């Protein structure tokens, strides 16, 4: 059978497919840079998905929906923040619980919304750029959230690299005891990071339910949060590589769907696992220099902070 994959469509749908994971991963990267391991990304994503979906349906405005999704994700993350930062609960266990809680909560909230179509998110009509042949339809004809997600990545990169706030955040993740000794409020910095991570995960979830699918079904994130977590680690906590990892994953997802549709003689199971396999493989190879990777890893990651001394 002849392969009929249109590269322009492929790139265009790649950017759409990658955006939810990109948003969730960049948020989680900031959280981990502050030394907190929040395994609840999946839960925050799906709560964001239903919050965004419900509010967009009720108000008729996808923009309001996205804001609500960010808020929903952030509120859920504050639950995690309160438990881990004030009650010093174990971050791994709390994160896992957060995922389960989020999945359950979202099914409850979404009961009245199954089978409804959300208001559509308009594609931007960028005047000159959108008219460029090939590149225009590929890159410059998406909805606003795609560009916002890219802006967030660039913003996070610049924040961590150039600002004092970013320096303090990295310092807290590197050694919370030293940061405390210098008079920085470790818990406040971490709560802010956790909240940002929750908001980003919520946005990512809403992008799934409002644009990518667009529909509400229970458990619709289907592991996207876990992939976002893996991408952060294999990207060795660098914003640029998180972008690369997310787009690689999205790209291969879209490509294998196209290949399946085209009826290529590769077992469907192999095609379906390929995005996970290839993304992790590529990122492992990139970060294979163990010493360099260890430099980027926040040294206090996952450790509880208590100002006892």
């Amino acid at each position, binding site marked *: 059978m002849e392969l009929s994959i249109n590269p322009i469509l492929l790139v265009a749908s790649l950017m759409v497919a990658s955006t939810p994971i990109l948003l969730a991963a960049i948020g989680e990267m900031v959280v981990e840079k502050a030394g907190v391991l929040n395994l609840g990304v999946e839960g925050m994503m799906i709560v964001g998905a239903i919050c965004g979906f419900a509010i967009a349906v009720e108000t008729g405005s996808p923009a309001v929906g996205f804001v609500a999704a960010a808020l929903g994700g952030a509120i859920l993350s504050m639950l995690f923040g309160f438990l881990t930062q004030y009650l010093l609960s174990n971050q791994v266990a709390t994160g896992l619980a957060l995922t389960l809680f989020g999945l359950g909560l979202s099914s409850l909230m979404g009961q009245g919304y199954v089978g409804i179509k959300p208001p559509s998110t308009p594609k931007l009509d960028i005047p000159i750029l959108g008219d460029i042949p090939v590149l225009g339809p590929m890159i410059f004809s998406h909805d606003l959230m795609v560009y916002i997600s890219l802006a967030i990545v660039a913003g996070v990169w610049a924040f961590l690299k150039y600002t004092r706030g970013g320096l303090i955040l990295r310092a807290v993740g590197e*050694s919370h005891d030293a940061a405390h000794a210098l*008079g920085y409020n470790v818990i406040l910095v971490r709560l802010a990071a956790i909240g940002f991570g929750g908001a980003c995960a919520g946005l990512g979830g809403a992008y799934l339910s409002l644009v990518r699918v667009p529909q509400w079904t229970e458990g619709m994130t289907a592991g996207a949060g876990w992939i976002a977590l893996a991408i952060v680690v294999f990207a060795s906590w660098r914003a640029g590589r998180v972008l690369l990892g997310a787009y690689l994953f999205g790209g291969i997802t879209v490509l294998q769907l196209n290949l399946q549709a085209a009826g290529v003689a590769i077992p469907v199971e192999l095609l379906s696992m390929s995005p996970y396999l290839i993304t992790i493989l590529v990122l492992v190879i990139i970060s294979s220099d*163990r010493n360099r990777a260890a430099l980027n890893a926040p040294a206090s990651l996952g450790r509880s902070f208590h100002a006892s001394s």
Partner: protein
Amino acid sequence: MTALLSVQGLRKAYPGVVANDDVSFTVGKGEVHALLGENGAGKSTLVKMVYGLVKPDEGQMIFNDGAYTPGSPHEARSTGIAMVFQHFSLFEALDVAENVALGMENPPPMRELAASIREVSETYGLPLDPSRLVGDLSAGERQRVEIIRCLLQDPKLLIMDEPTSVLTPQEVDILFETLRKLQAEGTSILYISHKLEEIRALCDGATILRLGKVVGSCDPREKSARELAEMMVGTELKSPAATRHELGDVALTLKNLSVNSSNPFGTSLKNVSFDVREGEVLGIGGVAGNGQDELLGALSGELKSVSDAVQLGGKPIGHLGPNQRRQLGVLAAPEERLGHAAAPDMSLVENAALSAWVRMGMVRNGFIDWAMARNFAEKVIDDYDVRTPGSANAARALSGGNLQKFVIGREILQKPNILIVNQPTWGVDASAAAAIRQAILDLAAGGAAVVCISQDLDELMEISNRFAALNEGRLSEPRPAQGLTIDEIGLMMGGAHGMEVAHIHEEEGAS
């Protein structure tokens, strides 16, 4: 001399322990004032209150004739108080300039900051490259980062918490030059230490703390080190005595041992060679982070090497793991008590069994003989005067000195042929330290070979037959300890590591 900082009746209690009780002292303008006391005497809590990290329960402070109640280190810094921490408050994965910026209230943009770091570091003879990662720096260089961070803020009072514990003797001299220069510029220094000779050489006044209370104050230049020690400890000190005995055959040989560190900021060992005879104590000195942990790992079996590189009585054992080496009588007591030498949340019985089951036959058919393990743990507790309510207590609940006695006793009672210890008396009070040193000497007198890695040079001179120093993963030629001078030892440790003496004398202080 007018007072800069006056502390009156400070008290701080934690649940179950009073860290400071009615502590008063005064630091004059331009004075170098010593706070002298043993580990646990409350020195660190006291300066944390001055630096705004801990709030006092009672008492008041007066700084520059005004009431001073710091709520946070930020306030302390803007008042003119800067602090160099004992356990460095540095971030290994950040570079020097970033580390300095984190300790300043209003840091200039990075490029200007890098320039002023260069300038101040040249002025005070503490060369530093602002773009290097702190994780790659030696302990002495790390301390320079801390000092420069303080100097850039032009402090009126500089607090230094045990600054010389990580320096070679030459580096100490250079640090003292820098401090005297600061003093000449009018900066007051609050100097915390338990090293008496240093305090006698540097300080104008001293306040002595014991168990959280002020027990005296004096001019240290007018007292002998012995008088100061007795004020500090409260009793007379008994020093360990070595018995004269003949050395036996070569027990342990290292031949061109090279191993890579498993820590990205660790130091790999390069071509380390020595041999130790039965009945001998080989002391290994050197500034922390020059390969001590790796050497202990390579000897205990945690880090494996080429089998010929480590030989036990001529038999290659470099490829064997810790338990196989224990079986052959090679035992080790690592530096980190909680987490390396002992599992913090496990009981003393379990901790005893974890290390001793191989040699003491505590496991039969895969089952642990707990009665035997308990007897062994209790024997360690009795023989080594470990103060604990019972062997069922968690290791974490013991004080540092008691846990250290337990760890050392646990290894010695297994009758090792070779014992390797790293920092056997670190953070241990003087009487416990003397007991541990005596135990090591007794073990050697019984015919075992001991390798003692330590940063405490006085300790090494007291117990070792021969001395060698680690410097950047290389070991110097071992030399008889008797008759070595401090200068010679310092050179073996790598001298001044490129530091220079402060070279401006008449100019204004750069800040």
